[in-house]
């Protein structure tokens, strides 16, 4: 399947503890998510990285879902996560 609409790749770095809820919410909203890595380690909060392929006009929607499902940080002013949307040159599912 080749898609002619403009596509974006969203790379989101979120906290491990939030990742399940976020993935569930994204899948429910009909987005496809791939989780690639998580920093494990003893006694440490890890990060998960999510790759989400999405039509460019729905990027804001993805950002919104991720934002809503990240639990507020206990530490004052500390960043909880970040998300980049990159332009995809070519997108194919074979």
């Amino acid at each position, binding site marked *: 399947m080749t898609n002619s609409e403009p596509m*974006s790749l969203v*790379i989101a*770095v979120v906290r491990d503890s939030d990742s399940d809820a976020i993935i569930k919410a994204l899948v429910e909203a009909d987005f496809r998510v791939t989780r*690639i*890595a998580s*920093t494990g*380690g*003893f*006694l*440490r909060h890890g*990060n998960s*990285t999510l790759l989400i392929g999405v039509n*460019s006009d729905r*990027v*804001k929607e993805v*950002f919104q879902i*991720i*934002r809503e499902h*990240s639990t507020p940080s206990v*530490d*004052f*002013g*500390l*960043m*909880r*996560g*970040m*998300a*980049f*949307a*990159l*332009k995809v040159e070519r997108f194919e599912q074979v």
Partner: protein
Amino acid sequence: MEPLIQVIVRVILMLLIASLVAIATRRFRVPYTVGLVLIGLAVSWLVGPREHPLGAEISLPDIILVLLVPPLIFEAAFHIRIEDLSRDIWLILLLAIPGVILTTLMVGGLVSWGTGLAIQVALVFGALIAATDPVAVVALFRSLGAPKRLQVLLEGESLFNDGTAIVMFGLMLSIVRAGDFDLTRSVADFLRIAGGGALVGVILGMVVSQIIGRIDEPMVETTLTTVLAYGAYLIGEEAFHVSGVLAVVAAGIVNGNIGPRGMSPTTRVVVHNFWEYAAFLANSLVFLLIGLTIDLNVLYANIPEILWAIVAVLLARAVSIYGFSLFGRDLPGKWRHVLYWGGLRGAIALALALSLSAEGSPEGLAGEVGRLQAMAFGVVLFTLLIQGFTMDALVRRLELVKRSFYQEEYERRHARFVAARAAYEYLQRMSRQGLISEHTWRRLSPLLEQQSKALIEAVKDVLTSDPSVAAEELDTARREALRAQRSALTGLLRDGVISEETYAQLVGEVDAAMTEEHLSWPGLLHAGGALGAEIHWLMTAVIQEQDLESATSALNKLGFSVARLPSTGGFLSRRNVTLLIGIPKGSEETAVKVLESSCQRRVEFVPLPMRNLPLPLPVPTQVVVGGATVFLFEVEAYDEF
């Protein structure tokens, strides 16, 4: 005088001396602990050595081991991050367990061979001298800004080997007492005492961390950490007859890594300050006591034995450091020399030596107690004075602390600017007071102003060419600003302008910002212009794991948002890290420069098994590591939350 009053008077006197020594050593650039030992020696030489410096009722080894060592060890363990420790945990454990055993055997053998001491007795000496005490070196590292990993290596080794050396010492004594040696029983005892101690410490550390998480009372939480430090030692030693020191080490590491999560920022600051002071106090007393107890006459009478002991200790350290460090993951070659020469001996060795007494010792050992103590004193003194004094020169010689060209240039230009401004202000005051004529001032002032302006530009040039220098200055400014806020709040509370609650809330916010090292200061930086733009680029940078700390902290200080992913790659599948960095338009060069300066290429040696040999023999092979691989992508949209 009543005994208690007498003890208090002596302790207060020692604290007074310690304060004076602290002031003096700062001025003369002598390590503080070395200064304390020297003053202690001078006092003991003037008034005669004291077997009981604090009064006859209290035995010195007990004071050192039960009263002073637990807070010292707890403080060091409390401040070690698990992440830092786990990186070199195998090397640390190798140095602390097989290393201590090897040192005991080698020193014992060499001393017995050289001085004719019975081998069992020499082994007791080997065990008691095996614990390293790098306080002086760690303090030096901190003041010079040596790599943190090296500090953790040296401190971690000493934390664990204090425990194992004490266990070994007990084992060697029991061998002398029993007269025979049973390998299985010794190994079993060693495992029981060491492992049991660690277990006791882990459990107590967890329990106290749980309690701390449930309450929010800075004073009570601090008190609980104190209870934990001494409680772990006493419960381990007295209730379970396992290693108290290892219990304190484990309790400190667990509590220091889990405990602070349940603390409010204010508690964290209180606990941190308390332990810093407690460690300073304990250290001062320990090293002063070392100086006070050493009897120069006894040293003089045993010079050949002491020389042998020093040679044996240096040889054993060389074998254990250069041998075991082959197993250290990507350990820079120069660090080995620093670890070797940084193996100072201190309080534990002395306390163990003093705990031997002629009356209580088994036959064979009783007659040699004086000699063993003299040897221990000699070795401790040699390592503290000779190695402690020359460490500074060694670290500088090896150029461990590399100051970049820009850092030095920044310092020079900044200093010139401050000097020029001072000259301007001084002349301005003189002209106002009529000390120089208006005419001269009018001719001079434009010149001076011009000079100042040129220097301001010159400083700015350096700061923009090396972002890490700028980041450092920004960080200092941020800390000072927070400190000023804190003291302003305290002033408001004292003057009754704000209530206790408002004060606690606002100070909590300031403390939170202060304890968060990597927190960026985007507000200020974004106001500066360059970074104010929206995130425009995504930079993916693959860097070596060992550069992670310096790279992320420099990036964060400059206000970049950074996330990291663990990855594997490169030569021998060495661990590396992939950073995702959000970058505003126009700042990509800055980010590249930061990575360039924090991820330098370097040559390292990796032991590789040689082929075509029946026994795989590791051969050090030269490899170039470091650097960063950077990809830059354009970002369509960015969100941070």
